[in-house]
């Protein structure tokens, strides 16, 4: 395995090892480019993962201090936990459920299609679906996404069968076990899904694609990639010409190190990435790096989410098998006659008893709550994920007084629902409940959003430098050798789970960086 010197200024430094950073690191390494990937969290291999919700939460979650504000319910119920994401090698691909959906064509040009929506900072992506298709192809191939490349779908579990039966009775047509980056048959030296459940806690069989298991080891095998765990990047440095020169990070002992770099790619997820740019403010860039537009940290999106759980007279045991076991896609279209723009997906979701108690109705108690828990094994559940409207006021900022363990300002995450989000959620709750009522639910529950798992938009991609932070390659408008490589570059969020698009963008960005380095442009 490669190791690179701190003073080696020829390396590409990638900050973060998740869907964006882990994929980019491997892709660059495959092209013969030397990469140092700095990961804030530790390295836990699949045998270390725990089939234990709270145990795993303590093991892999990003639990550094964060604050929240705004009217979203997460700020009240989970004030210090705006996002449910991972601090470990592999990033949130350790935790993700595996849903791998392409964006729809119109979702790359929502400003044009939706028009002006009051209060929303909509913008068209500077790329189209047609431009993304070859990269979606490559992403699906590398991830082994079911229902692509001739890979069969996964079998449906009990939770899926309830969803499917209800959805079909309701007349929904696009109902299936999903496009999942979980092996339905052995592939890429990994076995097929054992229906363990606990997808959120890190897959213990290796059937689920993650950068930890499927990208980073391949990159390391080239001799061009060094992954340094427990290395949290604190600031990015630049020279007088305004080019970035490297990063300062805290190593496993909390000691500061300086890694020089030819190119820096930031993939710390949508809260940490803008925070890092803002914390890197200097005399030359007083508002933070790559922030001439003032857009860094703004337009934070988290998807319009919610859940519906339902109880039935007879048992379901929804927790058996894959956590996200199937999908209803009929509502994903844009159909403003429903009272909102954009669309949403309905995807099965199950929580174990411990997390159900925490999330079914946060803060809930009493007889009704206990009755719901008593019916836990007779319960089915789905997650709602839809496009939310970007708003400038939804943003990640540096806290004025609170500092983290390294003495840097912690991020505050402010979020208010847009009226379009509220209307869409209401519609989705109604439809989700109707699905379960169609198979004679005894009771349905409208569960509010969990802390954010889909975090997007705080360093958004734009055609014009004044509207966003990065161009169509994720390259910052202001600094040629500084890139954003995670979901924070999303211009808008679409209705689909973001990981496939993050991976496709990383594959595309790796091609661009290699080409630019080859031409000595960066």
């Amino acid at each position, binding site marked *: 395995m490669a190791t690179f010197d701190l003073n080696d200024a020829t390396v590409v430094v990638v900050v973060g090892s998740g869907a964006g950073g882990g994929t980019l690191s491997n892709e660059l390494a495959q092209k013969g480019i030397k990469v140092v990937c700095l990961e804030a969290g530790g390295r836990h291999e699949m045998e270390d993962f725990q089939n234990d919700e709270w145990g795993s939460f303590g093991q892999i979650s990003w639990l550094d201090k964060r604050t929240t504000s705004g009217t979203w319910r997460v700020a009240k119920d989970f004030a210090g936990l705006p996002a449910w994401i991972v601090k470990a090698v592999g990033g949130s691909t350790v935790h993700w459920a595996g849903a791998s959906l392409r964006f729809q064509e119109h979702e790359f040009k929502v400003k044009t299609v939706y028009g002006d929506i009051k209060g929303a900072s909509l913008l068209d992506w500077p790329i189209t679906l047609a431009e993304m298709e070859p990269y979606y192809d490559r992403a699906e191939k590398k991830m082994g996404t079911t229902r692509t490349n001739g890979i069969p779908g996964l079998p449906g579990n*009990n939770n899926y069968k309830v969803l499917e039966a209800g959805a079909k009775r309701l007349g929904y047509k696009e109902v299936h076990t999903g496009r999942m980056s979980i092996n339905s048959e052995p592939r890429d030296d990994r076995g097929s*899904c054992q229906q363990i459940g606990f997808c959120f806690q890190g897959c213990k069989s290796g059937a689920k694609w993650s950068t930890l298991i499927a990208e980073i080891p391949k990159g390391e095998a080239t001799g061009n990639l060094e992954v340094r765990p427990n290395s949290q990047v604190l600031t990015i440095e630049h020279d007088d010409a305004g080019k970035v020169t490297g990063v300062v990070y805290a190593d496993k002992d909390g000691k500061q190190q300086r890694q020089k770099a030819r190119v820096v790619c930031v993939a710390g997820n949508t809260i940490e990435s803008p925070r890092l740019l803002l914390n890197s403010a200097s005399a030359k860039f007083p508002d933070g790096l790559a922030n001439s537009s003032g857009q860094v940290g703004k337009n934070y999106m988290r998807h319009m989410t919610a859940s519906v759980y339902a109880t039935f007279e*007879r048992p379901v045991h929804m927790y058996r098998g894959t956590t996200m076991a199937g999908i209803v896609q009929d509502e994903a279209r844009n159909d403003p006659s429903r009272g909102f723009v954009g669309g949403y997906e309905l995807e099965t979701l199950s929580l174990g008893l411990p997390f159900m108690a925490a999330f079914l109705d946060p803060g809930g108690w009493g007889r009704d709550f206990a009755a719901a828990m008593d019916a836990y094994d007779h319960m089915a559940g789905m997650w709602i994920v839809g496009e939310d409207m970007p708003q400038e006021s939804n943003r990640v900022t540096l806290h004025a007084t609170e500092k983290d363990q390294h003495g840097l300002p912690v991020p505050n995450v402010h979020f208010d629902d847009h009226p379009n989000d509220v209307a869409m959620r209401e519609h989705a709750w109604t439809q989700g409940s109707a699905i379960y009522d169609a198979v004679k639910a005894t009771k349905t529950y409208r569960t509010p959003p969990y802390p954010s798992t889909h975090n997007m938009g705080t360093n958004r991609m734009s055609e014009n430098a004044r509207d966003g932070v990065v161009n169509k390659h994720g390259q910052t408008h202001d600094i040629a050798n500084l890139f954003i490589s995670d979901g924070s570059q999303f211009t808008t969020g679409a209705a689909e789970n973001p990981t496939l698009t993050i991976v496709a963008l990383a594959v595309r960005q790796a091609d661009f960086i290699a080409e630019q380095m080859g031409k000595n442009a960066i």
Partner: protein
Amino acid sequence: MRLIDKRARVSRRTLLRTGAAVAVAAPVALAAGQAIAAAPVAVTGEAFATLVKLARDIYPHDRLADAIYAKVIEGIDTAAKDDADAKKLLMDGVAALDSAAMGMKHASYAAVPSYDERLEILKTMETSPFFQKIRGALVTGIYNNQEVWPVFGYEGESAALGGYINRGFGDIDWLDKV
């Protein structure tokens, strides 16, 4: 469908062998109101009993023994042993609960006979730090207690058992009958 034995955390074979299902199931299925052996270290015995009553009222599960609730209160009590603020929060909280009960129902909280009447009292203090501390501890103390998982039909760890690929992940059999 493969259903699970909800009585206790022991295998069916053990139950059959011992022929003493009731006795084996006892740790979880103890009747409500059974005497609690715990000796409090921070709060008084009377306050402890009130806290256990409160705990059950917050998450009332008839199928859970008082011992399950008492275990959570025991943890809170132990943590308050050398923490004057925490101890004060508990003792003041119990006093406030009893005082509210006296005002509304002319009895101490634990002596108010009906759940609905106690609920009325709790509604007046559900946002207090005291109530929230107890409730918060119960969310994990009850539902993350592996002893009670079988009672709720939750099977916990599955990877070590080979997942559910051969253990009923898709064995639901009633959907065409509803």
